[in-house]
């Protein structure tokens, strides 16, 4: 899922300058799960904004609403009555939601309430790690289900590099060496011989490197 973190309050105050009627719009999916932009976090930011404004002598009205998602028109529509008449919306969704809300509610001013960090797995309560880089050409079948693009700091396809030590990456002692993990996994699967095959250079055309991506499923279009 998409993992993000609430922006610092001061930064948000700067971005809402000049606005009076403000809506804090939450998203009930990824950002709610990582406790950055769900209904509860909307309530918290709204309370902080109201209190902060009162202490700074700012005259603002802050209201709250949360949609199930902000990346689908049908769900964004549920916010219409809340957005109507507002000077500004603070979207607590990921970067996708912020932009889509802005597009669907043009010309209302929309600012982000969180920083969108990465696509990650929930390792433990309150802990997430980056697992996928949406490269568009998944090689997980060849690496025992461990991604060398996302989890190797250098995105090597034929790792490890010389910086792998005690199963950790040289850039950070808390980062696992993805290729150590791949080796261990392939060994457990009895498929170690596959790692001897050299993986050819990856075509990054399908990744963000090839430009903003778009998918059209003709079979889904009526």
């Amino acid at each position: 899922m998409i993992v993000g973190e609430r922006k610092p309050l001061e930064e948000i105050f700067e971005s809402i300058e000049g606005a009076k009627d403000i809506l804090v719009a939450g998203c009930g999916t990824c950002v709610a799960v990582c406790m950055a932009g769900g209904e509860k976090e909307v309530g918290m930011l709204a309370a902080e904004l109201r209190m902060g404004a009162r202490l700074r002598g700012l005259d603002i009205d802050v209201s709250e609403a949360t949609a199930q998602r902000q990346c689908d028109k049908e769900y964004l529509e549920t916010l219409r009555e809340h957005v109507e008449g507002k000077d500004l919306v603070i979207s607590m969704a990921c970067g996708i939601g912020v932009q889509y809300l802005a597009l669907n509610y043009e010309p209302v001013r929309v600012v982000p309430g969180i920083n969108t960090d990465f696509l990650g797995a929930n390792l433990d309560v309150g802990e997430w790690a980056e697992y996928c880089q949406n490269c568009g050409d998944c090689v997980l079948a060849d690496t025992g289900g461990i991604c060398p693009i996302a989890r190797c700091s250098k995105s090597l396809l034929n790792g490890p590099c010389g910086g792998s030590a005690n199963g950790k990456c040289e850039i950070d002692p808390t980062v696992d060496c993805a290729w150590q993990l791949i080796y261990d996994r392939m060994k457990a699967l009895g498929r170690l011989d596959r790692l001897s095959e050299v993986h050819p250079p990856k075509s990054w055309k399908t990744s963000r490197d090839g430009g903003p991506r778009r998918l059209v499923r003709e079979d889904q279009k009526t």
Partner: protein
Amino acid sequence: MSETTSGDYEPKIVAFACEYCSYTAADLAGSMRLQYPANVRIIKVPCTGRSDAIMLLRALEEGADAVFVAGCQPGDCHFLKGNYRAKAMVPGVKTMLEEVGLHPDRVEFFHVAASEAQRWVEVVEEMTARARRLGPNPIRTGEGPEYGPGAKKDAGDEEDAA
């Protein structure tokens, strides 16, 4: 209604007390006829793990002068880890208060066992004293930030008093 003179100001303290420990301690304090400030408003929760940052923030937004959460002693939570959850939540709220412009001493977490009626009294006295020292919640009075850049005056840090 002006509450800026110390004579008029009576702090409003909100306390989240758990059914199994701190609320029982408060009840016992009453049975024992222990005398303590009448400024506290108790909200009983089944476990302090139920309490959340949003509740503390709303209490302060609505004008409470101080808010505290009183949970079980470490290891004694009936729901195993609720008190740890509440204890971990409070420092985050303190940081939020600092960013907003309120003094972090307005919120706190304490451990109070069911038998510790006297400890409950001490906790209430501590928070009431803090609320008096800090003065009325500036959210209510509209005075301006009491912490961080833009704070007009020191809100009576304990270090300053030393």
